[in-house]
């Protein structure tokens, strides 16, 4: 029972991070219609900026969030305002834009990953931070902190979406961009902000991951795939679905890891296949 409890707890902790990763991914597709294959690369970027600040100026990883999140947001905003907006304006149809933007993001994957490899090399690193167990349970403090940050980000984002004018504009655009445009929403600016926010979440997740797991410049793709699996589970564009999916996958991952770590990914797959057969549009899909 103790084992099971620990599995559930560590699963929840991992689930928090996965949820954050997936909400960001889902936001990019749900609103900006970019199936961002390079999402994981920005997780890697967040992780390495944190690592770099930690080793060079001894900056607390939590404090470094203040640097990584805005920085990666700006990168995302800029990418959308230049690259993806241009594609959107030239594409004859939405489906074509989705294809192009996915290919462009694949190019980004190459660029970001290889720039990082040139700067930081391809060896494994880790940020040693709060790596001590909390009394009573075998849960390292850094994981609890990571979960705490995820929850805070999640709540803030939820409040942002529901309470602010911009948040409402985002939700309107996700529902129907044309109508939102007619209602006076500056659609281009909303899309760029959404893309930036999505990447910023990846960056935050990356910072947190660097305090918990070993990091390499090649780590990105695996997280992109996890994000994809989560949004298949949760339904693309559904923020709630992404959150639930992330947590579910986190727990499953820990459960499988406990018995056979190499089977984790296969287990993810078995789950989506079962779910796809039962509900082809995801848990929360309409």
């Amino acid at each position: 029972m103790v084992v099971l409890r620990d599995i559930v707890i560590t699963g929840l902790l991992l689930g928090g991070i996965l949820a954050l990763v997936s909400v960001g991914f889902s936001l990019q597709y749900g609103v900006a219609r970019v199936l961002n294959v390079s999402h994981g690369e920005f997780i890697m970027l967040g992780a390495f900026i944190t690592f770099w600040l930690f080793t060079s100026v001894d900056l607390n990883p939590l404090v470094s969030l203040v640097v990584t999140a805005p920085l990666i947001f700006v990168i995302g905003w800029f990418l959308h305002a230049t690259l993806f907006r241009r594609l959107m304006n030239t594409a004859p149809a939405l489906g074509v834009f989705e294809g192009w933007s996915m290919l462009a993001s694949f190019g980004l994957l190459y660029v970001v990953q290889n720039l990082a490899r040139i700067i930081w090399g391809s060896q494994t690193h880790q940020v040693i931070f709060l790596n001590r167990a909390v009394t009573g349970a075998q849960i390292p403090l850094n994981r609890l902190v990571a979960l705490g940050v995820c929850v805070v980000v999640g709540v803030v984002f939820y409040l942002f979406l529901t309470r602010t004018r911009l948040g409402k504009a985002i939700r309107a655009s996700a529902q129907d961009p044309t109508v939102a445009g007619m209602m006076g929403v500056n659609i281009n600016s909303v899309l760029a902000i959404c893309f930036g926010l999505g990447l910023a979440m990846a960056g935050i997740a990356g910072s947190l991951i660097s305090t918990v797991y070993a990091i390499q410049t090649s780590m990105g793709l695996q997280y992109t795939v996890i994000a994809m699996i989560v949004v298949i589970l949760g339904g693309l564009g559904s923020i709630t679905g992404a959150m639930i999916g992330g947590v579910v996958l986190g727990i499953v991952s820990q459960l499988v890891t406990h018995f056979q770590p190499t089977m984790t990914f296969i287990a993810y797959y078995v789950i989506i296949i079962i779910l796809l057969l039962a509900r082809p549009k995801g848990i929360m899909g309409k």
Partner: protein
Amino acid sequence: MGKFALTKNRIVSLAILVVILVFLALLPTITKGYLVTLVADMMRYAVLTVAWVVFCAPTGYLSLATAAFYGLGFYVAAVFNGPLPFAVVIIIAGVVAFIVALLIGLLTLRLRGVYFTIFTFAVVLLVNNVVLEVERLVTGTRGRFVETETAQTAFYAMLVVLIATLLTAVLIRRSRYGLALQSIGEYEEAAAHSGINVVMTKVLVFATTSVFMGMAGAIIATRRTYIDPGIAFNMTTSFLPVLMAMFGGMGNLVGPVIGAAVFTYIGETLLTRFPDLYMLIFGVVLILAILFMPAGILGLGQQLWRKVKGGRRAPA
């Protein structure tokens, strides 16, 4: 419909085709060097791209599973080449790819749009992980050695597979299944209510085109001595055909072949000139290419042509 009428255009293009084929068939006897490898590589991507186009272009289902079938070909070659003749190995690779594609197809082709794309993307990593796990349990090692073939043998094998791919592509596009695929792409529901067995058509064509991807993999594997899942199931193999098809244009089969040749050449040149920065530059080229000529090399011309043709038509 004038299906068999030999128009002037048709004669010219047939003649060009014959010249190209003769040139390709003679190439390894003229030169033994780098050119043979380069052209074999172009043919490999031509196979992958044409096979991809046959299913994905008319239906609009964007598959990223190419690397899965291609990588399975690698493993078939690693296991069977040597004990079995090369030709048999290539056929087995095709059969394995067909069966796996059938399974994937039955599972995923009820998904539409982007869900299908995501699923096929992840399927590559699934196959990768399953192979890794099987290797861990069965051989306890990560990689395998492959019985190699000469550059010349691989070249001719690829040429044969390319011709088979093109023939199949022409046959499918000309047949009733070509029309069925296009109808499915335009309006799946209406296609079903007009008597098309939508699921079977999609799954069968998807699996048939995957055969050639597996075969190409088996041939290329014999030009390497060592493979592991990371090499065999490289995501890039899934994306490149999409890119090449987009830039070549998907309206006919010449476009994808040209796209494949051009991009293989760019890739090879980058790789030899800047081995360290190759991947970085390739990414930049990819982004720039999409930004500045998204309609593709031939696509641009085709669009203009369509406009000219459309202009002459009386509005209905």
